[in-house]
């Protein structure tokens, strides 16, 4: 619809805030061609009703390297946030606020207050409750990353469901949704691993400096186990977190989904937890592993 008008409403306050910007910067920021940017600025230049005592905007762009706005009497501020925009921004800030190990939460908290003071109706419809991380673990890991020392961790594994003790060289902490992960070189398995911080039961600082083989690039764990399962279409949404390769629809709402997961063990757990809603189709070793585990129940 009113595309150019919407752009112009955003463009003028941006030019005011970034006085002296070049045409290519304008094009880049608004994701338009330089030609289109030039047309828009041209429209701003000719705008300004004669009856209102001269132009309402005074733009000077002798060359396209610097555009100066010396007078924008009315539209010198950006438009207020829509509720959706406020929700997205404040939601993102509330999210950051949950991670004292990643950001300075006092600054983030102050920023949220500042925005809400200026816009009393702005609210975020998003709440985040993160998994609890032991303070000891947190401080040991942070110290180890800063001083580049190895740590010994007792870890409650997610895919294999086992508790193991490992020596790891910690590198960085990051978040994915409400979990915080530690990226580290695992000396026991001689590979890069991500550990969920809330599942590190204990962490001990060692006196050894980290020693990561130089030719080992940090790589993401791969979803290498290819399998097929059958389930009612109603439960399809529960496959949010797997890589879906393909799916076929059958009669009576059944679908066969071919997927890739990190490990067979994890998939067996998922199928067992579904309580019969999900059926393993192939490969045969998936069904064998599933039946073996289920038969061991007493």
């Amino acid at each position, binding site marked *: 619809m009113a595309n150019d008008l919407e752009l112009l409403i955003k463009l003028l306050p941006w030019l005011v805030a970034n006085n002296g910007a070049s045409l290519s910067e304008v094009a880049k920021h608004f994701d338009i061609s330089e030609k289109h940017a030039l047309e828009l600025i041209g429209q701003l230049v000719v705008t300004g009703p004669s009856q209102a005592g001269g132009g309402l905007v005074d733009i000077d762009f002798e060359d396209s390297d610097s555009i100066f706005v010396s007078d924008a009497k009315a539209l010198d501020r950006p438009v207020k946030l829509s509720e959706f925009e406020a929700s997205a921004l404040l939601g993102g800030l509330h999210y950051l606020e949950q991670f004292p190990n990643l950001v300075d939460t006092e600054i983030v908290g102050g920023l949220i207050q500042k925005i809400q003071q200026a816009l009393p109706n702005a609210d975020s419809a*998003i709440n985040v409750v993160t998994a609890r991380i032991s303070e000891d673990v947190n401080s040991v890991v942070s110290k180890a990353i800063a001083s580049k020392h190895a740590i010994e961790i007792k870890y409650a594994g997610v895919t294999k*469901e086992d508790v193991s003790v490992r020596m790891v060289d910690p590198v960085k902490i990051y978040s994915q949704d409400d979990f915080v992960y530690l990226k580290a070189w695992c000396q026991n398995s001689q590979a890069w691993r991500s550990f969920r911080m809330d599942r590190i039961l204990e962490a001990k600082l060692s006196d050894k400096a980290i020693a990561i083989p130089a030719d080992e690039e940090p790589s993401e764990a791969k979803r290498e186990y290819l399998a097929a399962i059958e389930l009612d279409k109603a439960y399809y949404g*529960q496959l949010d977190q797997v890589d879906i390769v393909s799916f076929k629809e059958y009669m009576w709402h059944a679908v066969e989904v071919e997927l890739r997961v990190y490990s067979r063990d994890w998939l067996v757990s998922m199928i067992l937890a579904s309580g019969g809603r999900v059926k393993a189709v192939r490969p045969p070793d998936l069904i064998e592993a599933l039946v073996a585990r289920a038969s061991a129940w007493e």
Partner: protein
Amino acid sequence: MARARTERMLNLLFVLLNSRTPLTREQIRERVPGYGDSNEAFERMFERDKAALRDLAIPVETKPVDMFHDDVLGYRIDRSDWLMPEISITAEERTYLALAASAWQNAQLSTAARQAVSSVDAREQGAEISVPVSLAKGRRHITEILAAIANGKTVVFDYVGLNQSEVVKRTIDPWRALLHSGHWYLIGFDQDKGEVRTFRTDRIVGDLVETKHDILESMPKDFDLSAITDTWEHSDKDATIATVLVRPGRAASLRVLATACEIGDEWDELTIPYHHESQLIGLIASSCDVTRVKSPQSLQDSVTRIVTTTLSVHNFGK
């Protein structure tokens, strides 16, 4: 939109925004070029332009021009209604604004957040920052839920409850989105049940549809989400206690939930408080080869039921 009309509307916008008092149609026609000579054409064009501005959520006020002539209507745009107030942002805060926007791994939400950032702080961002945070990657329904909350509209969707086999259509006044222990939830007022309910977004079947209807029940100002989530957590208040045996070094997810662990040679004994069986059944079934339920019997029976079902689905079992 034709270039001439864009120009005319931009001028109209400036004139309405720059006036302290409502302007009559005659005054607008005098000040804004491009409305032509015929009265009829002016009326038609002006109505169209006014509607187009309102479509862009620009608050064009209609008010009597003065208190003596309440039949003569004028128009203006109140700056403070439409434009952002000045917010002074420090360099450090600017970094976190950009980070909050870049956390969203969802196209619509990240676009909205970035737009919000440039409205709060129109200055071009400096260097990119690299704290790795990521939010809602590959998750469904989040955008629709947040949009419906912002618009104040009722939503409908098909839903499968935990340990239920039927798909039930729900009509919900959406209040909040919650990210909790790896899952996204919608919290809202269930119109059929007449009470507040929570829904895990990955149990929504098919699409979540925003209706044209305004919500019936809005969120109370003092709504306390933690009153709901506290009962999900490991809080020991009013909890049932399960005693579960697990093989040494195994069943890690159950160990994380345990409030006590007694180490044994063959089995470790875990004490796990819970509020609903559904919190434990799936986890125990997942590691049923290395886990035994000592008590309560009802939990043991529920796990046996779902493990047996899984076996029979695969044509095995007793």
